């Protein structure tokens, strides 16, 4: 079952889940709450990609995502006044400004989804990975991709995605302990 706005607010008030900072009332809709864009981004380092001479990613036990990310991306802060211009076909990693916590005992998982206002312009916020598992804690990483024909200015604090909370049937046997637990921006 999906939590409505009132249930989300009750869960927050009872500290069964947390979203910090707590969302403004205008960020809610009937069955979701919008999260906003953090100032930090990871953008691709095209110099490094050029040097890689067509490296092919081989997924498997030897592939280390963190090393790959650190080699081929660089961190940057979005200039608050100018924003970050996401060109057509560009792809960057971003985060929500809010940190969420879904303790296992609360029996809540969530899905991060796009917003229709941004989707109409071609902006996707995830690449087939919307699941926020029960037990997750941290900011949510977004895979922003501009499928549209126009550049889009991204500014910190803009509503960027929506979070839909779902009750789980029972408590998970194992708390979420994935590699992205308590991920940092």
């Amino acid at each position: 079952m999906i939590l409505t706005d009132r249930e989300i607010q009750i869960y927050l008030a009872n500290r069964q889940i947390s979203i910090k900072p707590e969302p403004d009332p205008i960020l809610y809709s009937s069955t979701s709450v919008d999260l906003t864009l953090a100032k930090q981004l990871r953008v691709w380092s095209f110099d490094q990609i050029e040097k890689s001479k067509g490296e092919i990613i081989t997924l498997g036990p030897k592939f280390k995502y963190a090393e790959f990310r650190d080699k081929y991306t660089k961190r940057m802060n979005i200039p608050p006044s100018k924003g970050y211009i996401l060109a057509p076909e560009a792809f960057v990693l971003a985060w929500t400004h809010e940190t969420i916590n879904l303790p296992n005992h609360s029996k809540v998982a969530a899905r991060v989804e796009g917003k229709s206002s941004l989707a109409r312009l071609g902006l996707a916020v995830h690449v087939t990975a919307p699941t926020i598992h029960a037990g997750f804690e941290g900011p949510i990483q977004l895979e922003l991709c501009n499928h549209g024909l126009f550049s889009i200015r991204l500014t910190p604090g803009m509503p960027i995605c929506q979070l839909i909370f779902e009750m789980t049937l029972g408590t998970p046997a194992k708390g979420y302990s994935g590699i992205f637990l308590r991920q940092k921006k």
Partner: protein
Amino acid sequence: MSRVKAKVIKGSNRSERIAYIKTAEGVRAEVLLSAAQTGSNHILAAEIARDNNNVLIELPQETSSGYWRVWVKENQLLGE
């Protein structure tokens, strides 16, 4: 449902309307709606909360700037 004052114009097809609502901050919010969700000078929206002379309403669709809810002045409501 409440009727909220809006400037309503034709959309890109016969069943679509574009509505402009004046928010409590004086900003014009744009929202694409179906014709059934609008009248000639209003849209239908759900009242969520009140704060002094402002009313928080939930729109039937997301605004172009990405909000489902906006604060409007009480005098923007036309009643049910």
